[in-house]
């Protein structure tokens, strides 16, 4: 994603350190870490902190933002959702899992890989080509990231949009209106359904809990 604004704070750093410790314990080649949570819950910030921290341990981690993989173009998405009904279409089905899984395969194989990369300024979808030969780990973040098949570590941030509405406004990513609220509510239901599959839970206060 190009032109994204991150608000990294102490809480992300602290939670990130605990996750890194866990990753180092379970370390294996071509490891995959997935981070799920609702819009504005701090997924990307946490992913950023973890990737940076791993680098200090000599581990090269690449971030993969699932928001790059929406099937409907950013400029057409609102219209498309309204036409098809928010209840019917908002959810994991909005993403191009085929391309995402192809890019994950390329990471595992250590080959060159091309995938979509949204520029938030131009609202165009660029194509990003990465050489995965030197990349040790993949950190996938997105609403439904922990749905990704064979993720080795599945992190779930428990903050819901009710608590982060404020953060959304600060970020100025999307206008707050009735439509947006309906989308957030549907996403909320879809994301929360994935919670039982997580093995690390990040609490409302960003405390880290490990679950079997």
């Amino acid at each position, binding site marked *: *994603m*190009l*032109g994204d*604004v*991150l608000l*990294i704070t102490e809480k992300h750093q602290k939670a990130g350190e605990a996750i890194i410790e866990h990753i180092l314990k379970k370390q294996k080649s071509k490891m995959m870490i997935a981070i799920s949570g609702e819009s504005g819950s701090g997924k990307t910030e946490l992913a*950023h902190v973890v*990737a*940076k921290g791993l*680098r200090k341990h000599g581990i*090269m*981690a*690449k*971030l993969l933002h699932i928001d790059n993989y929406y099937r409907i173009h950013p400029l057409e998405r609102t219209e498309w959702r309204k036409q098809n009904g928010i209840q019917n279409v908002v959810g994991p089905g909005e993403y191009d899992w085929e391309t995402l899984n192809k890019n994950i395969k390329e990471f595992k194989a250590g080959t060159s890989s091309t995938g979509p*990369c949204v*520029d938030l*300024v*131009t*609202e*165009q979808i*660029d*194509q*990003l*080509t*990465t*050489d995965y030969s*030197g*990349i040790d780990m993949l950190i996938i973040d997105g609403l439904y990231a922990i749905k990704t098949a064979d993720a080795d570590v599945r992190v779930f941030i428990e903050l819901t949009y009710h608590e982060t509405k404020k953060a959304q406004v600060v970020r100025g990513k999307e206008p707050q209106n009735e439509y947006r609220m309906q989308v957030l509510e549907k996403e909320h239901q879809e994301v929360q359904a994935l919670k039982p599959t997580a093995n690390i839970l990040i609490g409302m206060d960003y405390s880290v809990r490990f679950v079997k």
Partner: protein
Amino acid sequence: MLNDRITVTPKHEQAADVVLEFLADKMKPKFIITIGGEVGSGKSTLAYALAHKLKKQGVRSKIVDLDDFYKIPPLQRKEWRRANGIESVGPSEYDWGKIIHVINDFYENQKSLMPCVDLITDYVDEITTNFNDIDIIIINGLYATKIEQADLRIFIELTYDETKEAQIFGDKEEMTAFRKQILEREHEMVQGLKHGCDLFFDFDALVDKYHL
């Protein structure tokens, strides 16, 4: 540039407003804005603030960061500079052939292939973008104002001495004696490009104000 951390402050917003005002009667199709200045002076932040304001006016601009266009990739650059001496630091470190190529693609409304550094891995990815719907490119970088095709040249006056803190807290690079030497050399090279610029900003690192 992937995974860059940008913090827009009121002074950047105000500066962007000044640029917009300046642009009002000068705009033409396929417009090029360059932003030059030293490391950490706020070039990419101004580019970002400006691009967002243009977007609100319905003008589509693409940010091009010349840090992506070094001939020697980030992981090898320090060693290369040591081997080639401090005199090797300067505009000739850029791959000008590639930069010109991107400018031509922009003028010709074509698809364009650009290098794109991932600031977490320090590897150089490749971005394919389509310039067809892009009205303005905002090129920022130490030596960006060297670009002859520019329609508007902006120079940020903050010197590396004043941004020391930004250096430390920006966590992009850690300060060593060699790094200081490089900053001093870049300072000379960048300040040499000041003449011929159209707009000058002096963001004080500590005071949240701008002056023309």
